[in-house]
């Protein structure tokens, strides 16, 4: 099969070919770049929603409920669920899919023709997503999925990689994860457009909601449109859910849709996406530069002990900067 066949069949919604193309992208196969280049004009219709948060807060269960809710609303849904790869063996246990509702629940999302679920190992990349997650999202987008949900690795305080792919960022929290100082720390809590307090039937949910709402009311760096003084602002939401029982899911889905409407209306979507395209281009270029330098420096003479001098020589002699 050539590139053109792949492109045609992905656009036509052939899921087996889509699945193969995703593997090529994940493995950095040269054909993937050509496929991505050619499908690129078909992308941009989907709303990409990132779901991040600490391990065990219920991200995968929320994803399953959101898929179900968006399907009820007539949307097709693609999911990319990232779990950590071992830094020692490269192996991974990808355990997000098993939370997806199957035949044992009323709506079977496993066999739904308009749901595509793909598990990914982070493969050495830090920040909560894999290096190729962005490419996988583009492939799903080109295949025509209306909503694309990206679930990150259980994230700590500083992992904000999801911003590289998501139009809308959801940060999932649960009660008893800390006090009002924790909610005011920099990092992951700055990136949410929507905050979810899952397992909100547990004690402590009200406190967390109060702290979060107060913190957000102080927020001056809201997602205001860059370069425009009177731009409309997005009012960040706090939504309480009990994902296992489906509570709060409708409200969450509404907020997700409202956020996309806001992004489109205010022009923020275009700005955000242009910025991401630039970042992605830089990333692709950097990757090639890194590979080239590594290749050229394979026989590097260690004539100096300190790394600074060696690096300087690499820059001067080898790359002639």
């Amino acid at each position: 099969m050539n590139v053109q066949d792949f492109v045609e069949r992905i656009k036509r919604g052939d899921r087996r070919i889509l699945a193969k193309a995703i593997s090529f992208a994940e493995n950095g196969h040269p054909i993937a770049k050509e496929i991505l280049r050619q499908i690129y004009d078909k992308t941009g219709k989907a709303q990409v929603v990132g779901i991040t948060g600490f391990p065990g807060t219920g991200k995968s269960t929320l994803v399953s409920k959101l898929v179900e809710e968006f399907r009820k609303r007539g949307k097709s849904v693609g999911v990319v669920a990232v779990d950590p790869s071992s830094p020692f063996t490269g192996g991974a246990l990808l355990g997000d899919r098993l939370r997806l509702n199957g035949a044992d629940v009323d709506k079977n999302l496993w066999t739904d023709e308009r749901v595509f679920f793909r598990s990914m190992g982070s493969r050495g990349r830090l920040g909560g997503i894999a290096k190729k997650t962005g490419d996988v999202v583009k492939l799903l987008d080109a295949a025509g999925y209306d909503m694309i949900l990206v679930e990150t690795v259980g994230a700590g305080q500083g992992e904000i990689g999801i911003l590289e792919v998501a139009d809308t960022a959801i940060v999932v929290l649960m009660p008893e994860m800390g006090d009002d100082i924790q909610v005011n720390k920099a990092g992951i809590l700055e990136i949410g457009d929507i905050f979810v307090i899952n397992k909100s039937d547990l004690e402590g949910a009200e406190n967390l909601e109060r702290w979060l709402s107060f913190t957000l009311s102080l927020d001056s760096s809201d997602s205001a449109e860059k370069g425009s003084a009177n731009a409309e602002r997005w009012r960040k939401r706090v939504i309480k859910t009990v994902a296992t029982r489906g509570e709060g899911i409708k409200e969450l889905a509404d907020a997700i849709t409202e956020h996309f409407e806001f992004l489109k209306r205010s022009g923020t979507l275009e700005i955000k996406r242009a910025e991401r395209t630039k970042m992605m281009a830089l990333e692709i270029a950097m990757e090639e530069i890194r590979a080239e330098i590594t290749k050229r420096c394979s026989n590097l003479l260690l004539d100096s002990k300190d790394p600074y001098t060696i690096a300087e020589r690499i820059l001067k002699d080898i790359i002639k900067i």
Partner: protein
Amino acid sequence: MEKIRVLIAKLGLDGHDRGAKIIARFLRDAGFEVIYTGLHRTPQEVARAVIDEDVDVLGISILSGAHIPLVPRVLDFITQYGGDPNEIVVVVGGTIPTEDIPKLKACGVDAVFIPGTPISEIIKFIKQKVAEKRRDNL
């Protein structure tokens, strides 16, 4: 070397997955990407997951005694959904009576691992067989 992706599946009315979880863990440590389906999946669900996740290996763990009707159904659905079960390595593990092993192999299963099989043997088999299939599928 491309990463080996494995789907570990539990089918039907079979509530015992300690073995499946242990295998998943050992395969993870062997450097594979392992997706576990969780309990009570239908043949359709497993077939769909095989295609969407584009796995190299399907490992079915089964302790219920229903391997003869269930395993071939999974392979049939893979075909029905536009996939090709011959492209992947299919292994079955669990309490399989010896006389059923040839029957499973006849319908496309590459290996059956009964209780007591050393994990190193399973890993070696998977690595060898995946390499073979990848050569054939080129």
